[in-house]
């Protein structure tokens, strides 16, 4: 494993000592230090280039879709209120667009964590048949090499790189560098929790008590002493999506995966393309039964802006999310509890007031620096 040098942002210092008078107001309060890979340092030129690539619609088969289509700066870098993302020719995928804000802190990317880094992540949507629809990455490189402004920008960002040497390595590094600047802390919660300012109402504070107490939320949506990303970076089956797979299909698909694993073969394309397979979640990546129906714990920062919720966007409001957890992993009273449910999910018996305050608390996690009106 490569060890990355730690780049300490001012926010870390602020968070470590909230008495620190006159701390820089850089909007990073409550965030940990960011790990930046040593082979992709953040520079101004690279970030500007990355932002341009992020917003360029030419890197799609119809010339209409960019990264920003589903990760819109105007929508907290999601495509809220869409349930699942709309890509090429209005084709819809199976997963709800996660926010790019603070994704730099994720230990894995995508809802099922199949991508280890931001650099690796951005390779995939270009060539996904329902996202940006390219057959391969060649058209991207061609467009860039034939655009003098891009050639110049790549030269500036990558040590005077030759036009003919620009590759997806530089493209994805620039996009990742841009994404690493999209980090936002300093929410009302951060000011209250890490600086002791009176920014929360009594009910919001009660909601935080539910969050770390009866609600059991903090067990996965972690809050640390000096910073809070509101995720444990792990994968849990919380009873979302998996109930959509008929038992027979689940057994058949799971066995296809396990047979491939046992025989040390690749999983058949047909199985991977089956839309039902999407709800197998992390299992389809690791082929571990403990990961059946598991999805990554998402951050709660800016959660008020990113409805609908869960990997499939199946819950419209934060109230519905709280009800889902309160039932112990079911979206309605009729829905069965799936046997692969994560060990931490159980009925909570929250009162109406507790549920209301919990939702009020989650709405204190909005931070605005990168939000465009």
């Amino acid at each position, binding site marked *: 494993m490569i060890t990355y040098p730690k780049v300490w942002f001012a926010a870390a210092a602020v968070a470590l000592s909230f008495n620190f008078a006159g701390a820089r107001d850089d909007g990073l309060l409550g965030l940990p230090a960011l790990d930046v890979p040593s082979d992709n340092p953040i520079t101004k030129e690279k970030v500007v280039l990355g932002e341009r690539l992020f917003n360029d619609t030419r890197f799609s088969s119809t010339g209409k879709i960019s990264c920003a289509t589903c990760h819109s700066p105007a929508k907290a870098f999601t495509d809220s209120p869409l349930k699942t993302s709309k890509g090429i020719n209005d084709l819809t995928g199976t997963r709800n667009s996660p926010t790019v804000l603070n994704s730099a802190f994720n230990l894995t990317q995508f809802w099922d964590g199949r991508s280890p880094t931001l650099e690796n992540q951005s390779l995939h949507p270009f060539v996904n048949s329902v996202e940006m629809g390219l057959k391969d990455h060649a058209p991207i490189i061609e467009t860039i090499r034939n655009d003098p402004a891009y050639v110049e920008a790549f030269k500036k960002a990558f040590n005077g790189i030759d036009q003919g040497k620009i590759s997806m390595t530089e493209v994805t590094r620039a996009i990742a560098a841009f994404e690493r600047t999209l980090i936002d802390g300093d929410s009302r919660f951060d000011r209250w929790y890490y600086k002791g300012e009176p920014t929360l109402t009594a009910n919001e504070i009660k909601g935080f008590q539910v969050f770390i107490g009866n609600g059991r939320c903090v067990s996965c949506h972690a809050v640390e002493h000096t910073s809070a990303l509101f995720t444990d970076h792990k994968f849990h089956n919380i009873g979302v999506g998996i109930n959509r797979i008929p038992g027979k299909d689940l057994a058949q698909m799971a066995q296809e995966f396990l047979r491939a694993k046992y025989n*040390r073969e690749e999983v058949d394309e047909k199985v991977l393309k089956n839309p039902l397979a999407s709800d197998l979640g992390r299992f389809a990546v690791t082929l571990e*039964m403990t990961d059946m129906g598991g999805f990554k714990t998402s951050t709660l920062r800016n959660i008020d802006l990113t409805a609908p919720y869960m990997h499939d966007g199946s819950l419209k409001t934060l109230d519905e999310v709280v009800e889902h957890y309160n039932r112990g992993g079911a979206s309605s009273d009729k829905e069965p509890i799936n046997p692969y449910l994560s060990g*931490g999910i159980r009925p909570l018996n929250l009162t109406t007031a507790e549920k209301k305050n919990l939702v009020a608390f989650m709405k204190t996690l909005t931070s605005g620096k990168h939000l465009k009106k």
Partner: protein
Amino acid sequence: MSRNSRRDFLKNAALLGVATLPMSLVRLSFAKSGDDFTFAYISDSHIQHIKGNQFVRNWDMGLKRAVAEANLLVPKPDFVVYGGDLAQLGTKAELDHGAEIMSALKYKTHYVMGEHDYYLDLGAYWEKLFGPQWHSFDHKGVHFIVLNSVLTHHHWTYERWPTAERRMAEMSGLDNPNGSPFMVGEKQREWLKNDLAKVPKSTPIVVFSHSPLQKIFKGWNFWTDDAEQVQAILKPFQRVSVIYGHVHQIQYNQIGNISFHSVMATAWPWPYPQSYALAESHLPVLTVPMNRADPFFERDATGWQFMNVKTGRVDLTYQLPNNTTRTVAFNAKTGKPGDIAYQEKTKRIPPQDHY
């Protein structure tokens, strides 16, 4: 990091061989690959009745998960063994509820009697549901024996307690001076002798019991009082494996020709988390109860395992949630089972010492 791409994962899987499950899978492999077979092992679910139609949810979920995952197994196991303590207090309600969850299994299942199943009605209702308390069967060249190893003295069983409920309660406690040591008993030992009389000494023998057929710690009945006598009956056979439940933790040992393996529980681990800290001591004097302030991840330190009965010896692969998969295999050099990736002290996961 290896989990991040399926391709990497598949590479690793090639090294591990068979994979992960919420129960034990036993694989028996022989010289001719056509004779290989596997079986699955689920144990210690402690289905507990609260009142009416209410049961302890966590114990239910542990067993449901094991059953669901067993049904997905590739390759398909030839049969399943249930290792005992399906119920907590041996009531009809608990045994029925447990049997109902188990009925979702798609395989023939052999049941072993646990003390929590037995001491209310001395196994009467259990027998109606699951068949005889001890029996043997042959499968693809291996002789399997199921014993009831949780019997005890006649006086304690039939005369000491005013009610059956009291008897059950006394036997279900740990460190209980009113308890009594488990035993196979003379009658069953005679049956075992007769059963084995017709079996060639070269046939691999696999014995299923609820308690260890060895003496580990009497206070918790990690113990069978006539263990030496049972071992003596098994001694003439070249390859003998004893697989037991009851202990809710991983144990393995070798006595003479007999390899011993425990299986994990689907209900709760015993104990948690100090078991790591005490791994160095020879006796499992594990007097610390489970004391996580909020045991959030309910499946932690519970589980199930694959068993691979290579050349008639049992190898177990333990699937540990939130932990590294471990394999305990028979080591021909040392003549006893051992962790195939025995870890130096510095590489071990340190015990949790704060809450």
